[in-house]
């Protein structure tokens, strides 16, 4: 009895192809839907990443260098940048705190830059005095235009030892 049953099953297994038509079509369908789903996810991501932004320009003119007296820190509120003039020259320091993006304030009495949100403190050259900010304030590229004005590029971050000679 049980031998017969085993023989029968063995014969059926021999006739049955390794992948049935139904399984094959199922796998093809699932695969196609998977690829389509992945493509849909990529398209959705692309759709949600804008290609044109109506945001303020990241390059700006900061006026004539003579506007900035020697040994001074000047806060440009519209651009959220400090223009610092030392005996060595000019550099531009970001005023946006590296912790969570608040705008810092220059405290001339304490000779430091302080963040009102969570209490980070920086030297005028951007070096961190105390946290919670994880990094120093970055320096932006600064140079002179042909007509002698200072120009700052906020997309270009330079090493803090680079200064524009006065």
């Amino acid at each position, binding site marked *: 009895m049980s031998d017969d049953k085993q023989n029968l099953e063995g014969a059926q297994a021999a006739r049955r192809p390794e992948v049935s038509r139904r399984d094959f079509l199922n796998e093809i369908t699932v695969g196609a839907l998977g690829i389509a789903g992945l493509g849909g996810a990529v398209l959705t991501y692309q759709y949600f990443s804008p290609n044109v932004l*109506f945001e303020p320009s990241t390059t700006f003119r900061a006026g004539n260098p003579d506007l900035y007296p020697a040994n001074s820190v000047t806060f440009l509120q519209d651009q959220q940048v400090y223009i610092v003039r030392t005996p060595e020259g000019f550099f531009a320091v970001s005023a946006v705190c590296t912790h969570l993006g608040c705008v810092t304030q220059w405290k001339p009495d304490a000779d430091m830059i302080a963040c009102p949100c969570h209490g980070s403190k920086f030297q005028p050259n951007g070096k961190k005095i105390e946290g919670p900010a994880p990094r120093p304030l970055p320096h932006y590229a600064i140079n002179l235009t042909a007509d002698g004005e200072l120009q700052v590029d906020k997309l270009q971050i330079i090493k803090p030892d680079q200064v524009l000679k006065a």
Partner: protein
Amino acid sequence: MASTFQSALENLRTTRVWKSIFRRGPAITNRTRSLAMFGNLFLHWLPVKVREKSLRVRAAYYLGSLSLLLFLLLVVTGVLLMFYYHPAAPQAYHDMKDLRFVVSNGVFLRNMHRIGAHLMVLLVFAHMFHVFYRGGYKPPHEFNWVVGVVLLLVTLFLSYTGYLLPWDQLAFWAVTVGTNIISAMPIIGNKVRFVALGGNIVGENALLRFYVLHVVILPLIAFLFIGVHFWRVQKDGGVTVRTKDDDGKN
């Protein structure tokens, strides 16, 4: 008087309209009572029979129901606010100011929505603590506990997206700080922030994105999960595991 009302009700039950809606006679036997539950979309997911003890309520039992009530209040007041609000910069700020100072009863509706949202966060947390300390995350409530955690997150996201909509200084800096937290994610942080804001700064795109999330996507998710949550409460036999009551009854 009472008999007049009863006979009017009896007459109503014999009308063709009534019969077409309810399809059966008065729920007087166990069978017709069961049919009354099965034949109603809004009742059919409730158990036909419940134990008396699962109907016994304590004061804290209401925390979840009150959260639902506040959610419905926020939907109603939110839809009403939408009639005067444009999700555009700087118009959004002026619309918010108009709602406070120009529109009749606008300040009342806006504050109902604002304070209701604060209260809902408070109540959802209170509900979570109640369920937690009563052991409501244990079998058979494990799945519903997870649904509840999703609802807590949806509540917080609703609060956070609504935070930006007044478009004032508080809104701007809260979302600037909050989305900078996203940037702290390794590798993809900045990309996720860019997509969430639709740009590098909190601007028009961010306001519109938060608005759509706040008024369409998150409420739909909330409705879906609230439905599952309340259905499972009935199926699991109450909000929390019920052991012996304080009065010794089981």
